[in-house]
């Protein structure tokens, strides 16, 4: 029976959302203060009021494929102003993790990312791959010699690329699969809930819309509209640009290596090196700020999924910079092992990207693009 009005509450879904940090969701009594105070909610079918009742009724279908959960930037204005302490911001965050896990296969991996129990496994996977592959190929040398310290002597660049290039392909593939379902779902949901009048999904239009929202994303325009968590926008901006910076640096050095055949370490005077160092520092500051914000906001819930990602971000920055500093200080042993840990972090961030909270960079971007495309007011 397919009656679009027929609803069947799914109690297990409610329990899962509660477990993902949405433990307050049942407190909502539907006053809609949240939708009114939300600075970024659209006028047509505003969120998060309707998401709150859908969550407390366990209506999974109305939430997982709902683009509004991604339009939310988790400013926290709603949470602060909620008269019932229902914390809509946190509930939507929990729903987003649930949605991320839904769209990413294999599902087991999603479960591991969201549970502290499996953290050792997540760390062991890259460690094992590095060691096994390194020993088989001989590209991992535990006793690198020579005067000059170079990371590639210990953990060969070839080994890095041998692992990370296929990994990148894998990540893209998983995202592609998830996105296909995601776009279809959010379109269907938007049609059902009257958020758009565009019956057919036009991909060219969607891509044009994507181009239109890129400046908004780059400038963090939406995020800056939040009043409650203004500091969070700054921290996010730092991390966001440091990742972009580091992405550019990686590509530059990739070209250096494979096209220009220049091997590192590169001179500190190299402009790309400047960018790399600035980005690295920004990453550490941004990551530390984020953690600081989380710790100082006692009225907001921080779930394990948040700590996992924050830990990775800060760990990534710290180990990266430490590797560089110890290398220049001539501490061969320390720099090599820091580098190893750094790569474990990179692997975690990268490989589990479609499963972790960081996947928002894809889903939120697409959701924002779709919202732009939908013509919703």
């Amino acid at each position, binding site marked *: 029976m397919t*009656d679009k*009005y*027929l*609803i*069947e*509450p799914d*109690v297990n879904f*409610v*329990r899962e959302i509660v477990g993902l940090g949405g433990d307050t969701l*049942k*407190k*909502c*009594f*539907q006053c809609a203060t949240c939708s009114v105070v939300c600075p970024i909610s659209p006028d047509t079918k505003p969120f998060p009021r*309707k998401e709150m*009742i*859908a969550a*407390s*009724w*366990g*209506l999974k279908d109305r939430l997982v494929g709902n683009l509004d959960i991604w339009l939310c930037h988790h400013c926290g204005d709603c949470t602060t102003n909620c008269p019932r302490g229902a914390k809509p911001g946190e509930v939507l965050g929990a729903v987003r993790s649930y949605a991320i896990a839904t769209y990413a296969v294999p599902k087991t991996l999603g479960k591991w990312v969201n549970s502290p129990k499996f953290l050792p496994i997540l760390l062991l996977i890259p460690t094992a791959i590095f060691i096994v592959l390194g020993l088989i190929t001989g590209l991992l040398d535990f006793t690198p010699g020579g005067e000059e310290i170079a990371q590639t002597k210990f953990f060969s660049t070839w080994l890095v690329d041998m692992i990370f290039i296929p990994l990148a392909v894998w990540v893209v593939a998983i995202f592609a699969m998830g996105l296909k379902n995601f776009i279809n779902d959010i379109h269907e949901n938007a049609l059902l*809930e009257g958020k758009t009048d565009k019956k057919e999904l036009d991909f060219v239009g969607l891509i044009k819309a994507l181009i239109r929202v890129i400046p908004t994303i780059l400038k963090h325009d939406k995020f800056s509209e939040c009043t409650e968590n203004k500091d969070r926008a700054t921290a996010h901006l730092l991390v966001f640009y440091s990742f972009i910076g580091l992405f550019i640096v990686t590509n530059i050095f990739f070209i250096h290596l494979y096209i220009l055949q220049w091997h590192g370490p590169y001179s500190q005077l190299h402009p790309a090196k400047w960018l790399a160092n600035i980005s690295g520092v920004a990453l550490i500051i941004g990551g530390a700020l984020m953690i600081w914000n989380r710790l100082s906001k006692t009225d907001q819930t921080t779930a394990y999924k948040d700590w996992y990602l924050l830990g990775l971000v800060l760990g990534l920055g710290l180990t990266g910079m430490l590797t560089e500093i110890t290398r220049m200080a001539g501490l061969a042993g320390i720099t090599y092992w820091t580098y190893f840990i750094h790569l474990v972090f990179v692997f975690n961030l990268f490989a589990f990207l479609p499963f972790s909270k960081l996947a928002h960079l894809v889903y939120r971007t697409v959701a924002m693009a779709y919202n732009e495309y939908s013509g919703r007011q």
Partner: protein
Amino acid sequence: MDKKYGVYICTGCGIGDALEMEELCEVPEEEGLPVKTHPFLCGKEGVELIKKDIADDGVNTLIIAACSRRVNYDVFKFDGCIVDRVNLREQVVWSHPRSEFPALTEEQKDDEEHFDRLQMLAEDYLKMGMAKVEKIDLPEPYKLETLSKKILVIGGGITGISAALDAAKAGYEVTVVEKESSLGGYATKIRKQLPNEDPYENLVPPVIEAKIKELEAYDNIIVKTDKIVARLAGEPGDFTVTLKKPGEKIEYDVPYPLPEEMKFDESGKELDVEEQHKRYLEYNEGKLDILQFDPDGEKFGAVVLAAGWRPYEPEGDEFAHLGFGELPDVVTNHQFEEMAAKGNITRPSDGKEAKSVVFVQSPGKGDDDADFDYCGSVTSLVSLKQAKYVREDYDDGKAYIFYQHMRTPGLLENFYKSLQQDEGIFLTKGEVVSVSKNGDGMIVEADNTLLGEKVKVQADMVVLATGMVPVTVDDPVINMAYRQGPAFRDIGLFDGYCDSNYICFPYETQRTGIYAAGAIRRSMTMEESIEDATGAALKAIQCIESVNRGVSVHPRSGDMTFPDFFFQRCTQCKRCTDECPFGALDDDEKGTPKPNPARCRRCGTCMGACPERIVGFADFNIDSVGSQVKAVGVPSEDDYDEPPFRIVGFVCENDAYPALDIAGLNRLSYSADVRFIPIRCLGSMNVIWIKDALAKGMDGAFLLGCKHGDDYQCHFIKGSELSDIRMQKIGDALSSLALEEERVAQFQVAIDEYDKLPKMINDFVELVEELGPNPFKGF
């Protein structure tokens, strides 16, 4: 009593600054009355001055011209003395500043052109006070020959038991009458009760058993089961009650008044008194008249009516759209409670477990979003409670509540919050539009929900949150042997609940000495009923003790006066018996009223109704008010070139008079040509006073009283409405005198609308001025 007068004028609070005191003192002096002024009359020295005069000179009739009678009433109270307060402060100097009502200069005095409106106002009020005290007497209390202090509690449910316990604890003898064969009522038929203690989150087992046990321990409580009241005759302090078995027919069954249509013959002519009485006797054959007291009847002082409620029974296909009557798994909350009390909840149709239950709070299918009839917060709470039953019975049970209103007053909000937390309970506002069969179960469809414009859910059972009908809808229960009838009068406002004003006067019914408690008053929970019972028990005690002292109970608590009838002139028109809002009068077969002063609330509606003007109180009567009207000075062209207008305002002393005082307190000013006379209620307004006023040459008259209608504020239920009807009739009389109908008006004002009074008064004065002076002026 030989009256020895004394006039005392206070010059404090701005009175002395605004008024010419010497001229004011001349007013009583001209009449030969001693007058004294004092700058601080309510102070120790001022009061001593008065007390000294009382002690030394035997002064016993005092006119105190100072502040309003609504303040310092305890200061200016002198035992054995008649006291009248002339309101020079709030209604003269504070509401008429000299800046707007200037005093006369030396040249202007006696020039026949100028006059001092404010001085005139003060002098008139003083004259009116002097005229009034001449016509009133000290009241003497009405004492019953025999007084019973026993309290009758009708209804042995949770309310009745609680009321009996409270009254017994206060030391009173109580008799509980229950129509069933055992005590407890509905409270014994439920699975669980709403939370009654901190944290107000959990259902509790019924408390009724413990209450019954507690009751048994009191030897000043007598319980009579299998009994109902056949008749209750007499008056508070001296009720004679005849009990009988339910269904029994006895000669002391209460007679009913003759229905309206039987008072007329075939041609539509009203029958005369004898013929009507004959018919009345035929109509009530086998029943003794109300004035025939049962010699074997039991005596009681006051009654707590706690007869409770019955579940609403849907009529025919009233809720056909909700499947009620057609689908066996659609039940009322009452039926659901019965099932829940027996065990796990199962479907009536096939006995299968009911794991998905939809609770419907409003019938929908109408223009409004009203809940079921006779609902209230209790139906919201019962739905929450019953939703909890579903969850108690089944781990995977689901309970849906579709409501238009979710009312969880007080700490029961905690209960609502805790249920919200239950993952198997789903709440939404919405209008349920249909319940239909769907395979094995049902589909409930609702519009305009919080989840979207339309939703459907699957249900094993549907529960309608129907209401609690007070038993007084079906039957008088109280069976008063009163001429107005055995039941509370249906004034079209209370849907059969016995009450007289929910907000201002809880527990008060329209009959003195009978106090309603529990679900007979409004739908309420058991927890509320227990609390309500305390209130009603206290009212019953207050009543007995007031009657014992010969004073009024409510709302004129402590008033010792009561209506006195000069029967020689009675024409047996029955108007007083009919119009008394409290059924205090029982006329005999000739139609002569028999007053029952202890039933009376002293509003004076009888006094306003009487065309022969034979009803009066010791301190408030036709003559005392008429003399005040006549005491007002009405200047004519003989006095001034352009004499000021004179308008009299009869003011309800419950709300309108205080509102005028508050206007004064806020220094709001209005015309100084109006003279106010406080009266007990607009219902006590006798039209003769208006005729007196106009005959004397006054230019207009108006009444200022409470709002009437659905949200009436009259302390005596119908006073302002009755006077409105009477005023419509005065129009004809006025036109026969060639006076414009517009010269007489009635205004409604609430106590907090003091700020509207100046405009109300000034607009009327302006209107009268436009009509021109009364042509009878100066005759």
